[in-house]
């Protein structure tokens, strides 16, 4: 099978990049982004979302905007982007988030959004899947996806909530 070797290679590359970032196997010291930009596909009619709508989508509650069903994609657990997003949007710590999803499944509700790791892959998914929505470090933004304002605030605005 080619997959395991590919993944191992990806992980090793990821570890190398992590070391460059200052994260060591002994403890997490990942640099957290100062803010996150919420992205949708370029062809999406969505330009602005309220924080409540964003929260609903990422709590796996069925959410529509402009008659488009939102399909959320998360960063991996404990990644700096995920930690910041969960704190600012869901109002939960990583431990609370993990417990929340276990409780939701036992309650019989849907599980958490899918996880896509890596900005490039995430941009590709969001660009190609109608309704897909996710978030990025603004430095990873390119023309394949569209930034969404939150509550009318651009991610450069001082009152932008996901910072």
């Amino acid at each position, binding site marked *: 099978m080619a997959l395991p070797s590919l*993944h191992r290679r990806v992980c090793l590359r990821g570890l190398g990049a992590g070391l460059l970032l200052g994260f060591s196997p002994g403890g*997490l010291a990942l640099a957290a982004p100062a803010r996150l930009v919420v992205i949708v596909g370029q062809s999406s009619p969505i330009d602005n979302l309220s924080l409540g709508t964003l929260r609903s989508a990422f709590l796996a509650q*069925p959410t529509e905007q402009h008659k488009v069903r939102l399909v959320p994609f998360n960063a991996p657990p404990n990644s700096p982007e995920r930690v910041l997003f969960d704190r600012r949007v869901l109002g939960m710590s990583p431990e609370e988030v993990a417990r929340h999803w276990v409780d939701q499944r036992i309650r019989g509700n849907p599980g958490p*959004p899918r996880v896509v790791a890596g900005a490039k*892959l995430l941009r590709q998914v969001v660009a190609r899947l109608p309704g897909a929505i996710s978030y990025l470090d603004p430095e990873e933004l390119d023309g394949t996806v569209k930034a969404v304002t939150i509550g009318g605030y651009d991610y450069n605005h001082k009152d932008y909530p996901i910072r």
Partner: protein
Amino acid sequence: MIRLRTLLRASSLSSLAICALALPAEARAQSENPYDPPAAEPPSAETPAVEPAPAPPPPAEPEPTPPLPSPDALVAPPAPPAPSAPPAPPAPSAAPAPEAPPDEQLDEQLMAEIGAELMADHSVNEPRLSLYGFADLTFYKYWLHEDSGFRSLLYTESAFAIGNLNLYLSGNLGAGFRSMAEVRFSYLPNGSRQVVGGEIERTQTDAVDYSNLGEERRTGSVLVERVYLQYMPTSFLTLRAGQWLTPYGIWNVDHGSPTVIPVVRPFTISFALMPERQTGIQAEFNRNLADDWRLSATLGLSNGKGSVDEYADLDSNKAVTGRLQVTWRTQGTLQLGATTYYGRYTDLSQSTELNGAGVRIVDHVQVQFDELAIGFDILYKLGGFHLQAEFLSNQKRYTARGRPLRNAVEYWPDLERFGTYGVVGYRFDWLGLMPFVVGEYFQISNNFEPARPPDDDGVIHVMSGLNARPTPNVTLKLQGQVALSASDLPAGSALEHPLWGLQSQAAWAF
């Protein structure tokens, strides 16, 4: 064809496991949450540290990329792969044709995996089954007076007990349909006790195993907790048909032992002042009212309560359930709910009597009453702080032909009961430790001492202890409990003496 998600995702899971090895222990603990879908792995070149920090992003032209299938439109089987272009003849004496860089090959492969997952989630031809559940082991010790009536329900000897082994079977069927089932594997009815004519009889289910001659096995049972087909035509409407948990309060639907804070749920819940589950249809509306407010309304129509309500309605009188719930999320989460249930309970026996040349079946109503139940609940969470409370009331009004005898000289009167409980706790980060206190007051009908009036007896119940979640999937509990009567009881009453108990429990989700 149904196939397990676990098998489908084997490759992704293996990659997760490999990645986990490269993470510190703290990070691994979070990554191992089985309910977080496996991540597609990142190409390392995308990490910000290896790229120069760009200024505001240039308005690059989006690359023309083929779209993935929309989840709403995924009802058709996966399209066959596009025929690959015929291989170009190799140029003589030239270097091999350049292949796509490994990173791009990887991305395309991962994109294909994600597309396949989305397709499988929503395809009518390839529904996927998810298996998960929870279980628990409890160690208990009760101290009961020798005259206590609780001795007919509880053993005073300390013991270990497997309480729940619940399995969930959930599957997306495509086009907005979903199947959901939860079953509990139980040792019951073995060991259950009943008072029969002054004797306490215990059910034994020992049976000789014909395939291992001489070996005796005890048979148990499978209890259907819920099973329904769900259809979501829009994002704000969900329809369910089957057997569903009555959507009242907090701990009736959220009944899994890993999520319930004390070892046992309060008596207010377990005494079923509101039916625990019903068989019928249900519609649930959800709508964001404002940025931070979400309204949920549920309406159900069912057989109601009855002696065989899972598949028969002995009075053809359908029960109605309604619930309104408002959730407010800003500084913490506040949830307020109100539920009402109205239905008729009927239990009847049948006999035959001669009818000319044949016989006919005659119904004899044994018990029949109209029942109205009303409940209110509140849940507030802020950081580690947890507050929840429920109030339930129940009114029974017997019909003229369905009022049963209470003893030799009187019939049962109409009954009104209520129960209420509150929980306060605070969960610390360290081991997810939560000290908690549960206080409860509830009423039980006096159906065990016919010499006393049938008035409802009040009971005060307190549980207090520690609940720890060292990982999200494991809950450890230790608590003490006491229940004592709040009514003026005569000497010799079964409820005169308090119940003291100490319990510990390990509950886990898998």
